[in-house]
């Protein structure tokens, strides 16, 4: 039993380490080689965890080898456009200049239904508004609307808009995030003054508090239990 526990911990830490080193892309959209590696690693790691008669090294060596091969492939792919195309394929122009490219649709094994589904996922309900739709090599669909269907930008409307940047979380479920507070150039005295101004006596009463680059504060109190 204790062996299983130790093996699980070792396999877990090894997988975490390798996936961390492979990068965050591994967690989201997967290229073909990344998908292959992920599937293989998950399977290889599971076998010695279920059977203590199989040495753990039988999993660790293949995982390390797969990690090294994936690294080599990604470096080689960066150096050679040709190899990149060969290994990961090329994006498919499913819609080009407003026209659905049926040959590309067939090459990517996509039906009109599936195209519509992907468009709806991008909040596009009318294919007539699409100028370009690309099926990327990681399987995601990128959509560019026709100029008349694109939302008007502030520049097009001649408006001057001040950037408010992104919001930084300062209090999360009652806990003050000191590093973030320092990052925005504020201190606890300022924070407590803000809390009082919004009718809160203590940080523990706050569910979330954020501050954007313009200094605007968003605050939500905890729900009463």
């Amino acid at each position, binding site marked *: 039993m204790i062996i299983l526990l130790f093996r699980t911990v070792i396999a877990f830490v090894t997988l975490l380490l390798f996936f961390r080193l492979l990068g965050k892309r591994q967690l989201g959209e997967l290229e073909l080689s990344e998908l292959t590696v992920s599937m293989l690693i998950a399977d290889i790691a599971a076998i010695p965890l279920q059977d203590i*008669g*199989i*040495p753990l090294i039988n999993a660790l*060596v293949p995982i*390390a*080898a797969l*990690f*090294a091969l994936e*690294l080599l492939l990604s*470096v080689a792919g960066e150096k050679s456009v040709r190899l990149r195309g060969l290994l990961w394929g090329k994006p498919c122009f499913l819609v080009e200049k407003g026209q659905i490219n049926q040959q590309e649709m067939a090459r990517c094994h996509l039906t009109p239904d599936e195209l519509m589904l992907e468009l709806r996922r991008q909040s596009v309900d009318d294919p007539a508004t699409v100028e370009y739709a690309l099926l990327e090599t990681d399987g995601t669909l990128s959509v560019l609307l026709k100029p008349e269907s694109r939302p008007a930008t502030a520049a097009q409307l001649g408006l001057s808009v001040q950037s408010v940047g992104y919001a930084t979380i300062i209090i999360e479920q009652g806990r003050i995030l000191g590093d973030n507070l320092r990052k925005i150039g504020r201190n606890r005295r300022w924070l407590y003054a803000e809390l009082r101004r919004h009718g809160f006596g203590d940080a523990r009463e706050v569910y979330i508090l954020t501050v954007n680059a313009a200094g605007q504060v968003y605050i939500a109190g905890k729900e009463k239990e």
Partner: protein
Amino acid sequence: MRRLITALVLLGILAGLSLWDLHQVQTLSDQLCALTALSVRALREGDRAAAISSADTALRLWDEAEGYTHIFIRHSEIDSTADALFELKAAVLSGDAESAQAMQEMAAYHLMSIRTMEELSLGSVF
């Protein structure tokens, strides 16, 4: 560049580890096969003390290699080989040369099986 070096170093370490593993399993199987064969030969020649000594040495060698075998070899294979070596010793102690010969062949078969699994060949790969 750092990723390339990491990948190449890692592959180098794995290749080195594989070669070391191969060397270990070859050395161990050669030594054990030789000792068990020596034990049976000594028994046939009537030198029971030498036969027991060789069988004991083989068992001790197998036990001492535990640090290696338990990390690199499937436990079912370790148990089968250990069983064959113990059976050989029992046969040698009873003075039954025919049984000892059979057990020596069984131990050698298990050792060669472990070795074949580690060696690079079409059979072991596929």
